[in-house]
């Protein structure tokens, strides 16, 4: 277990009280709190380094450009990207996936082609493919999931029988915490000639990611889910694929020469970064990565898996509680989705909030998954490095209270 008291001291917001209680923040799959070093990095950037990047001839602008490009190198090293120029800064995972669908997908897909997604994909790794397939007259094939919330590998195999052009899946499920066998899935998809898109929103913050070992083609990540600022994120891609892709957004920075009626484009990654970028976001994200590396992703993963296991153990002791997703350790990251008898998840969330406990209630942007689980919504607790066993106890205790309000007698 990590030294949670020491880590919490690095996060100013966690010292805040909510509804008269210690804040128990268990909505980390939605977004994470920020350590002081990230806040400092953003303020320092504006106090000492701010200028527009890649344009200025003066020293300040050169320093801003260096800070921005150093952040890119930091992200590249963090996930073992193929090259720094294979890291395109985006607003987050959603924009990164839309970039792949809107650029690579639009240039590649033809009527009659197919795209494969899974029944556990977040709407951000589903809706862009729906839009693309509708536009192109292509087929979208959704791979089924098993009862315990894992990708059904035999159905995955069947989905590849008619070779798809693109296969997209999440490394870690945001709703269930399932850790998918991403390298194995990528290998199977490559064997039939598909390009592989991995939604890394929930994996990058919580486990050691090596995109080259995964051997995917595109990998999307969000900064705000890994202690970085909102509006920061990246698409990590194989450089030769990016090179061949048409631009996504047009504007400044992404061009080489502009004529009256046409333009030539900048090199990657700049070809995909039209307009003034979110330098503050990139700098903040780099500081978050430094902080995470200081603790160690392997230790963070172990810590969260232990918390999830402890939470599951406590929750299933409460009569009427159902926990969704894989129970075996190693198959699950620090996400625990559950329901409690006929107490609706929103009612659970309202009741827990009175005790200062923040959880998510709803469909978690995974409506097709909720349909497959045959629930309208679930309650979800998601852990991070600053959560400890005291948070698990608070969750279980408040849940018993919620049950009592609805007439459930604690066992």
């Amino acid at each position, binding site marked *: 277990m990590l030294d949670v008291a020491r880590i919490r001291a690095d996060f100013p917001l966690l*010292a*805040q*009280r*909510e*509804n*008269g209680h210690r804040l128990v923040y268990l909505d980390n799959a939605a977004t994470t709190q920020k350590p002081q070093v990230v806040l400092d990095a953003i303020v320092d950037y504006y106090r000492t380094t701010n200028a527009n990047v890649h344009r200025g001839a003066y020293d300040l602008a050169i320093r801003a450009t260096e800070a921005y490009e150093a952040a890119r190198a930091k992200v590249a090293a963090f996930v073992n990207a193929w090259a720094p120029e294979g890291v395109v800064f985006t607003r987050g995972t959603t924009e990164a996936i839309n970039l792949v669908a809107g650029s690579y997908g639009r240039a590649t897909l033809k009527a009659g082609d197919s795209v494969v997604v899974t029944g556990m994909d977040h709407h951000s790794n589903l809706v862009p493919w729906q839009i693309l397939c509708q536009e192109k007259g292509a087929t979208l094939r959704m791979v089924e999931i098993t009862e315990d919330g894992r990708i059904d590998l035999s159905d995955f195999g069947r989905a590849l029988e008619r070779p798809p052009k693109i296969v997209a899946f999440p490394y870690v499920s945001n709703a269930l915490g399932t850790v998918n066998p991403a390298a194995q899935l990528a290998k199977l998809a490559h064997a039939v000639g598909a390009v592989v898109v991995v939604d890394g929103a929930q994996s990058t913050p919580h486990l050691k990611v090596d995109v080259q070992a995964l051997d995917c083609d595109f990998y999307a990540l969000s900064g705000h889910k890994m202690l970085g600022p909102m509006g920061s994120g990246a698409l990590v891609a194989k450089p030769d694929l990016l090179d061949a892709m048409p631009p996504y957004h047009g504007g400044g920075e992404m061009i080489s020469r502009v004529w009256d009626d046409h333009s030539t484009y900048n090199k990657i990654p700049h070809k995909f970064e039209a307009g003034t970028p979110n330098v503050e976001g990139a700098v903040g994200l780099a500081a978050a990565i430094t902080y995470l590396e200081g603790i160690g992703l392997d230790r963070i993963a172990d810590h969260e898996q232990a918390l999830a296991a402890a939470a599951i153990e406590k929750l299933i002791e409460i009569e009427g509680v159902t926990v969704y997703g894989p129970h075996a350790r190693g198959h699950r990251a620090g996400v625990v989705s559950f329901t409690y008898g*006929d*107490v*609706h*998840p*929103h*009612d659970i969330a*309202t*009741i827990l909030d*009175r005790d200062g406990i923040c959880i998510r*209630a*709803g*469909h978690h942007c995974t*409506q097709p998954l*909720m349909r497959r689980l045959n629930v*309208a*919504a679930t309650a979800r607790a998601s852990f991070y490095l600053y959560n400890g066993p005291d948070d698990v106890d608070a969750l279980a205790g408040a849940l018993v209270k919620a049950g009592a*309000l*609805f*007439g459930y007698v604690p066992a």
Partner: protein
Amino acid sequence: MDTSRPEPQLSALYQELILDHYRRPRNKGTLEDATHSVSLNNPLCGDEIDLQLRVDGDVIKEARFIGRGCSISQASASMMTQLLKERTVPQAIALAERMSAMMQGDDGAARDKTLGDLRALAGVSKFPVRIKCALLPWNALTDAMKAGRG
């Protein structure tokens, strides 16, 4: 730093009457001879309601609903359908306005006997994120009435 609002009581929100309507919803089901049907959902939280009315002339003769959602949205729907029977369309619209006023914290509305069991939902006004739950069936009613006038 404590940034909390003054603490509203959970017991005020989860009254027995609300849980009773949640667990034993009145008028749950469909109407074969409905004159008005409206489906609404709250995409944020997934609450769903299908409201059906049989309006004869200007009078609501029957109201039924099918729904999935939290105790507040489902109890509100159950209480609403109870109240709508034999009301005229203008009366129903007036009730929807009273309900909306109560959700905005209007004490007069919270004491208004015409709202019947719905007064048990007055406490929801202290939980801003839950107001949309209580109003979902009423928004369906308002949509149905508008469609009726068209």
